[in-house]
């Protein structure tokens, strides 16, 4: 953990207040993410997890507060700066949010075409790499989203989010709607990509197994604010909701699964170093 503690902050939200009508969702919320970590966001239904994520990526306008990404206040950016910023993050929406009229390859191509000037053949080669990296079979490239299973749609959505080699990836419930095998494979994939590409991952999730398997730190949304810490730190919090969340039957089962050696063996090798030492987590613009 020590190394990650020294990493610079890439997302810094301070004194955020969001409300819909008269309903205040966040109030005086502070939240920050360090480079190269996997940050989980959890909370009860309606506690504003997705709203927080959507606010950071600019889909919701906050009532007040400051959001800095890569050290820049997102509310003061010009259009060009916003576009440049968008090229540095990728978002995976709940069901992939693939463009239904385009094939998987064209979906992945869309951000590349929009943001860069590469030749058709180079684009095609990059698409092939992305498809393989997210674990899709080659013949998925020419399929339409409606022809894919839920898990494959999420993988394709992830490939599109990573098309421009995003530095931050936002995931909205990445394992929701997947069967347990698919969900755990998706967790592995995220961990693996995070390690090889040096991604910073912010994920909203309900899945306790995912939390234990891949998150370095977890933010719990409680009473319109967040409590941040590793799972071990959070469990020591005296809050009843956190207590019930992590120590309820599901929480205990997930913890047991994490510590069981058989389960750990299925994770990619990079994962075994998590929690104590993440020096292997690379960073592409840092040499």
């Amino acid at each position: 953990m020590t190394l990650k503690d020294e990493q610079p902050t890439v997302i810094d939200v301070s004194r955020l207040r969001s409300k819909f009508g008269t309903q205040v969702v966040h109030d005086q919320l502070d939240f920050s993410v360090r480079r190269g970590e996997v940050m989980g966001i959890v909370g009860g239904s309606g506690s504003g997890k997705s709203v927080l994520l959507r606010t950071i990526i600019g889909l919701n306008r906050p009532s007040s507060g400051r959001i800095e990404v890569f050290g820049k206040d997102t509310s003061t950016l010009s259009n060009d700066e916003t576009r440049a910023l968008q090229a540095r993050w990728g978002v995976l929406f709940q069901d992939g949010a693939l463009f239904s009229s385009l094939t998987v390859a064209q979906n992945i191509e869309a951000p590349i075409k929009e943001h860069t000037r590469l030749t058709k053949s180079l684009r095609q080669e990059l698409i092939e790499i992305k498809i393989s990296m997210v674990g899709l079979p080659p013949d998925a490239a020419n399929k339409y989203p409606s022809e894919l299973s839920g898990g494959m749609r999420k993988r394709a959505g992830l490939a599109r989010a990573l098309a421009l080699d995003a530095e931050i990836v936002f995931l909205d419930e990445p394992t929701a709607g997947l069967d347990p095998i698919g969900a755990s494979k998706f967790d592995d994939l995220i961990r693996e990509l995070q390690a090889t590409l040096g991604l910073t991952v912010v994920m909203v999730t309900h899945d306790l197994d995912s939390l234990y398997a891949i998150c370095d730190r977890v933010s719990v949304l409680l009473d319109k604010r967040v409590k941040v810490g590793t799972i071990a730190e959070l469990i020591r919090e005296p809050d009843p909701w956190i207590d019930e969340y992590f120590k309820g039957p599901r929480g205990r089962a997930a913890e047991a699964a994490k510590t069981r050696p058989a389960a750990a063996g299925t994770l990619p090798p990079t994962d075994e170093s998590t929690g104590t030492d993440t020096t292997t987590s690379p960073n592409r613009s840092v040499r």
Partner: protein
Amino acid sequence: MALTGVEASTADRCSFSSETLQGRLVVAFSGAWTIGFVGTVSQEIRNLKSDGITSAVFDLADISGLDTAGAWVIVRTISELSAEGIDVELQKASETSKILLNTVTKNHVECPPAAPPDNFLVEVLHHLGVETYEFCKAGRDLLNFLGYATIVLGRTIIQPRRIRVVALVSQMEQSGLNALPIVGLISFLVGVVLAYQGADQLAKFGAQIYTVNLVAVGVLREMGILLTAIIVAGRSGSAYTAQIGTMKVNEEIDAMETIGLDPMDVLVMPRLIGLVLVMPLLTFYADMMGLLGGAIMSYVSLDISFAQFGTQLKAAIGVNSFWVGIIKAPVFAFIIALVGCYEGLRVSRSAESVGKQTTRAVVEAIFLVILLDALFSVLFSIIGI
């Protein structure tokens, strides 16, 4: 690992330089080898191979950034050189660069190319065939549904307690009462237009007074009912499809069936019966508004007073003309509601298909209404009304 700030690499280009030393190619890479910049060098770097080279060294010491796109261009070059029998050695690559290069090497797979489009003519014929088949199938299914709906309607008439009164009244309000402003306005304007155009032409023969006949026959026999039907198809027919389709997407229809509620009774009949009941009333209202528009225009442009208009109206047409229009109303209403509900029930479980079926419902309903209107015209001329 040295840490820089959170800023991206400041290099705004990527480049390489090469030199040949005794058959050994040395390539020094510098700058940001990232997706935004590699486009400029990706072709150039392919021209590296030249005769007399036996080995190559890629020096990555000076690159300030590398992502999968940059790594791919390097990996591609390496594999192209290897194919020529030239061994490539990487020098001074950082750990992270090596991981990235390995990942990219491992993940290069060829995806099958997209199927090339068929011959244009074949494509057109194929499309024509598919569409014709679909059209016939849709016609058959609609006929099927017509039969089913008729049976259910008969059953409902025999057992009136099956009628959902609240739903029926609510549907009558939505598709009847709430349509009054738009139906009235459009009919009024069409009456105005008919009178104005008629007056213009008929004045040439000094037969201005026959403008009244034109307006009366036009509005009562055709325009009133046809406009009402088209507005109702666009307004209520589409709403039926969208409402029922959304329920289908939410599995509400499935839920109904498991509880033992028949969607035909609960959803289709109130809409069908409701529309059949209100459509004649709407048509009557449209007729009156059309005549009013004609009368006002006649007064303004031809100085025909309302009293004169009334007298001429009475002389011009019999009560038959009025009934010819009204009699079509329940038939059109039945068709519009039938098509709307049918397309709604055909929605598959995606939000996309709600939109598609709604469009279909409106197009089909208007098509059928105009087709039936033509058939009615033929029928009326045969029986001489």
